[in-house]
């Protein structure tokens, strides 16, 4: 029997709920991984027809083009407020926001804190790439000390602009359903991140309060690093400031 004659089965293929169009993301940017994981989780949970996404402002502003689910587009930073409005009116729907770090951790800090403190029953997918991607790589609250960006050309001075914003410290007092941080490079990290996303959606649908998954993502273009170097930077430098793991609602260790 030649190889061509051996029967095969598909063990992995692109999720149906992802639209067929090509994303506008740069090569090596892992917004696409986050999209795929959310798509897979929604498919596996049977929530595709029940889901309403809230897009934010940033590189993922056009996320609704890439998913075959209902979406609304929020103003910059306001996605958790918009998701609150939707979830309160349609309490049986799976309502999630998809936000970047400029959106959530800077301009939208008020809205995410408000939603978290109310225990709003939504899922928040937070993609952290340590800069403002869409506007061309400016400094964000998540930018690492010393990291050069287009608005911190000498490297971020933490004494003047603050240490990287870490949600698990900031929100330690909130009664959240789930709070975890994963990374979107390397198969083991990505598989773990998918489990986190799954857990977040499950706990959210179980009305356990706001469920939040932060996903570290490389930004090769604005970090001025080739995709493979950007991956290394994420694993070697970014995780020093942003430890991976579950901080609330995780399995007992």
């Amino acid at each position: 029997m030649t190889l061509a004659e051996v029967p095969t089965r598909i063990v992995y293929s692109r999720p149906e709920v992802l639209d067929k169009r090509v994303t506008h993301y740069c090569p090596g940017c892992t917004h696409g991984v986050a999209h795929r994981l959310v798509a897979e989780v929604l498919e596996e949970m049977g929530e595709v027809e029940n889901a309403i996404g809230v897009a934010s402002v940033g590189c993922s502003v056009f996320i609704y083009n890439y998913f075959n689910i209902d979406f609304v587009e929020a103003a910059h930073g306001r996605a958790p407020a918009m998701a609150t409005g939707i979830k309160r009116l349609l309490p049986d729907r799976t309502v999630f926001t998809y936000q970047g770090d400029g959106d959530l951790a800077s301009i939208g800090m008020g809205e995410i804190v408000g939603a978290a403190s109310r225990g709003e029953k939504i899922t928040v997918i937070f993609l952290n790439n340590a800069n403002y991607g869409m506007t061309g790589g400016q400094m964000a609250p998540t930018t690492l000390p010393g990291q050069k960006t287009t608005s911190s050309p000498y490297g971020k001075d933490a004494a003047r602009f603050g240490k990287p914003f870490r949600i698990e410290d900031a929100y330690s007092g909130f009664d959240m359903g789930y709070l975890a941080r994963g990374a979107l490079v390397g198969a083991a990290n990505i598989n773990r991140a998918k489990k986190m996303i799954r857990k977040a959606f499950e706990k959210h649908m179980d009305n356990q309060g706001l469920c939040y998954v932060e996903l570290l993502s490389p930004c090769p273009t604005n970090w001025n690093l080739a995709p493979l170097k950007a991956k290394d930077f994420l694993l070697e430098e970014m995780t020093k400031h942003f430890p991976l793991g579950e901080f609330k609602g995780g399995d007992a260790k």
Partner: protein
Amino acid sequence: MAKQLIKGNTAVAEAALRAGLEGYFGYPITPQTELLEHLSARMPELGRPFVQAESELGAINMVYGAACTGKRVMTSSSSPGVSLMMEGLSYIAGTEVPMVLVDVVRGGPGLGNIAPAQGDYNQIVHGGGHGDYHMIVLAPASVQEAVDLTALAFDLAEKYRTITCIMMDGSIGQMMEPAELPPMQPLRTEIPDWAVRGAKNGDKRVLTSINLDPPAQEVMNLRLMKRWQEIEANEVRYKGYFLEDAEYVVVGFGTAGRIALSAVRAAREEGIKIGLLRPITVAPFPIDVLDELTEKVKAFLVVEMNAGQMFEDVRLVVRGRKPVEFFGRMGGVVPFPDEVLTEIHRLVGTPQTTEGSPRDRWLARLAETIG
């Protein structure tokens, strides 16, 4: 139903509830707070969502999300809070989802004070948020009128997929007056086709205000403008008093219009042929009736609780054909009917001109009064 003595804010809240309000999101601010408080009690009683947001910014964006579900939703605030809402209002206008905003206007600019004022006319009627959009703006002059306009506000918002603002000032919000509340209406059951709900069978809906392609965005702008033309043609509302034989006409909305009516009545008793035009929709502005009056009357007097914001719209219609004088009090000061009557006497008793600046003349008179 029998009339009851009820505060304006409470009455509007209850009227909204009875009109089938399905979601309320707000933030405390004087002189609007009773509206929020009333709904904080009544909405849960009926199993309907009520959220006190973290800010007006949060509140308007919650309304934005809630409006995307096609349900009857509203928020309320007062001037500084409405300033904070401007971002969301522009997005809501750009997404073409219906909502009702109640603005209980107070003295400004800045933190100002909590007294009744009409200084929000420009930010509500002429935008405030970025981009070209209009809201329908209803300006009640009594608690009863505020109640009656509330159900209409929802109907208009849904009919035109637009924002309707009930712009009342602090005195309407805070005043207790006898008013008759409408009966409780059942909630709507049908969902508009555009509303998000979860994409069944891949039938997906996206509600957004982004349009990177300028020609496509222009088409969207054109759609908004055409809809506004339709609103201008069909939804103008005003009340005229003693206009049939009027030689002079006072123009005023809301509380200023109500105070002016007392002055007009007093002037009529003196035999002065004067009437009052009180726009109920300040947007769309009652252009046609004002245009007709311009042909008939000798002069106009615009009375407002601001520095002459609607005054500019009146002047645009009159176009220098007749003198338009202005009288206003600012910063939360409410004019007395006597002051307006004095202005009427001046209008009728001295030669009027279309020359010069009516605002400068008014400011000079005001400076003599308040130093």
